[in-house]
């Protein structure tokens, strides 16, 4: 293969701009008409754009200008947060979307790469959330350490859960995760040290002495929402996690996970240890889910068993499938649709779930691979190999 043609950077920049614009428009839309128009326009753009080959053009463009596009994407995220600095509720929604994407990255590694279905993603977020709550209230550990510890504890619990399943095949892992998700909630509800059904209060984040729960005041006139600082931190965490997941995909690790998912028997004939790779993927995914849960606890300042239900796990799974199973980039539009849309359509009450469900089914009918289907692996995109 010769040197690939260097594509122009314009499609990549246009895509980032469109993505940031659509996110802002959806978050700021006031009436349900605006919401419906923005959501439908966004989804239509993804569907039609995919058919018309814009996706390929954008992909080539991004591949040829990796550094510039990733810098622009970080910048675009910062600009979106800045523009929302005085919109408390919209920022909270954006933060929630980012945490769902973070947990979705974990599910992408588990389900999309390794093929291990996890019906307890919300429960694993809950493990991280409760770990963080307990550590923050009863120890003096720095909060960054607490968040990482929440991820590690969640990963460990997840792998212990999977260990007995190593000798089984088929759907046992799925059943175990369903059981865990349901048991987890019951366990919390009867456990008084963890607050029972009333839940726990969680203190605000402090990093290097900076308290995140205080509004950011410049003078008497201007005051930024305290969620601005959270959103900033979440962008950094999400960016790091995204990079890590992408690198897993674009490496021998990603190939081994694909081989285990697609044909574990054939893979074992070449020395692959399917069980070890599944455990590794499951643990890494739960590590990300645990971190997302810990950040969620800190963001909302309060957690209860009802925040981490089986239904929430299904919601997370639907984000991963709607976005395009195995494509971490698809998580963002999918999480926006799944998290923001029902919230914005509250005026039409119960019907919003009907509408939302119809939309999801419609998208998957038109595009079975999801909004942004996974692409073939390129270990180093944009380079000749």
């Amino acid at each position, binding site marked *: 293969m010769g040197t690939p043609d260097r594509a122009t950077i314009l499609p990549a920049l246009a895509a980032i701009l469109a993505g940031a614009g659509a996110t802002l428009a959806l978050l700021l839309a006031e009436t349900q008409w605006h919401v419906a128009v923005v959501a439908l326009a966004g989804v239509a753009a993804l569907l039609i754009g995919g058919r018309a080959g814009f996706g390929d053009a954008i992909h080539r463009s991004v591949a040829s200008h990796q550094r510039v596009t990733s810098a622009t994407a970080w910048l675009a995220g910062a600009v979106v947060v800045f523009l929302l600095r005085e919109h408390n509720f919209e920022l909270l929604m954006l933060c929630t979307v980012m945490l769902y994407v973070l947990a979705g990255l974990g599910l992408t590694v588990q389900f999309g790469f390794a093929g291990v279905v996890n019906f307890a993603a919300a429960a694993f977020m809950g493990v991280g959330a409760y770990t963080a709550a307990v550590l923050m209230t009863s120890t003096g550990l720095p909060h960054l350490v607490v968040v990482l510890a929440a991820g590690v504890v969640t990963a460990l619990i997840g792998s212990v859960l999977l260990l007995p399943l190593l000798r089984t095949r088929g759907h046992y892992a799925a059943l175990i995760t369903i059981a865990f998700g349901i048991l987890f909630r019951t366990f919390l509800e009867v456990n008084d040290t963890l607050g029972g059904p009333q839940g726990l209060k969680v203190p605000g984040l402090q990093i290097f002495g900076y308290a995140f729960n205080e509004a950011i005041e410049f003078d008497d006139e201007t005051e930024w929402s305290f969620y601005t600082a959270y959103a900033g931190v979440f962008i950094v965490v999400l960016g790091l996690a995204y990079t890590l997941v992408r690198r897993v995909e674009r490496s021998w690790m990603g190939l081994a996970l*694909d081989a285990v998912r697609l044909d574990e028997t054939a893979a074992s004939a070449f*020395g692959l240890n399917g069980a070890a790779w599944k455990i590794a993927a499951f643990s890494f995914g739960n590590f990300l889910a645990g971190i997302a849960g810990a950040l969620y606890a800190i963001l909302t300042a309060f957690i209860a068993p009802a925040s981490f239900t089986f239904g929430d796990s299904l919601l997370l799974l639907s984000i991963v499938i709607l976005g395009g199973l195995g494509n971490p980039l698809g998580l963002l539009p999918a999480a926006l649709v799944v998290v923001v849309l029902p919230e914005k359509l509250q005026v039409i009450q119960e019907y919003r779930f009907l509408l939302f469900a119809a939309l999801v089914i419609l998208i998957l009918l038109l595009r079975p691979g999801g909004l942004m289907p996974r692409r073939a692996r390129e*270990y*180093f995109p944009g380079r000749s190999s």
Partner: protein
Amino acid sequence: MTHLLEVSGLSVRFGGVRALDGLDLHLDEGETLGLIGPNGSGKTTSFNTITGFVLPAGGTVRFAGEDITAQPPRHVARRGIARTFQRLRLLTELSVFDNLMVGQHLTLDHGIWANLLGRSRLRGAIARQTDEMRTLLRHFSPTLPDRLHEPVSALTMIDRRRVEVCRALARSPRLLLLDEPSAGMTPDETAELMRDLQNVKAARPSLAVILIEHDMAVIERVSARCVVLDYGRKIADGSYAEVTRDPAVRRAYLGEEADA
């Protein structure tokens, strides 16, 4: 002097069926052995048992002097035994390169540093593997090296068969088990594949090969020695000429009229 592969008294039962019934088999370094027999005679089962996919009811498998009986497939692979599958088991949605790299799994560095952090070693490894795999594919087809990054699903049947054989050859195994590589191919395509395979063998003189085949013409062309199975038992072992003269083989293969 011990043989590279020594199978003795190997028995496999599926319920009441004796798929293998006390099979004895041996193979030396660099040797090519044709494993023949009618459908259901235990050829594939013997491969599956040697490679650890099927557990034997009795008997032993020794490879390079060590007992590998009933070891899991990945441990068998580690010792240098590679195989193909009769019904191709390529990962069709992945590229040719990725499929070959599955064959190379045990030689690749799966560490966190090389894959996630530094990445310059990964880049070097990919460049090296790309060259190596192009050279390997070139033995089998002049056009395949240029299709290294296409998905396997875009290839023709014969090209897929070639990729499956190359995947097994990728890590330079000591023993290659080919499970009916001519299945689904025309006689010309089979002849071509066998000629290419012999070229590879010429370049790797110590490579031992067991070839399952029920087309006797293919066996005649490549094997110095044949083992014939029928109902899970070995009924003949010798050169192609000896085996084809054997009355038991003729009966098993050609039916009762061979006696007449």
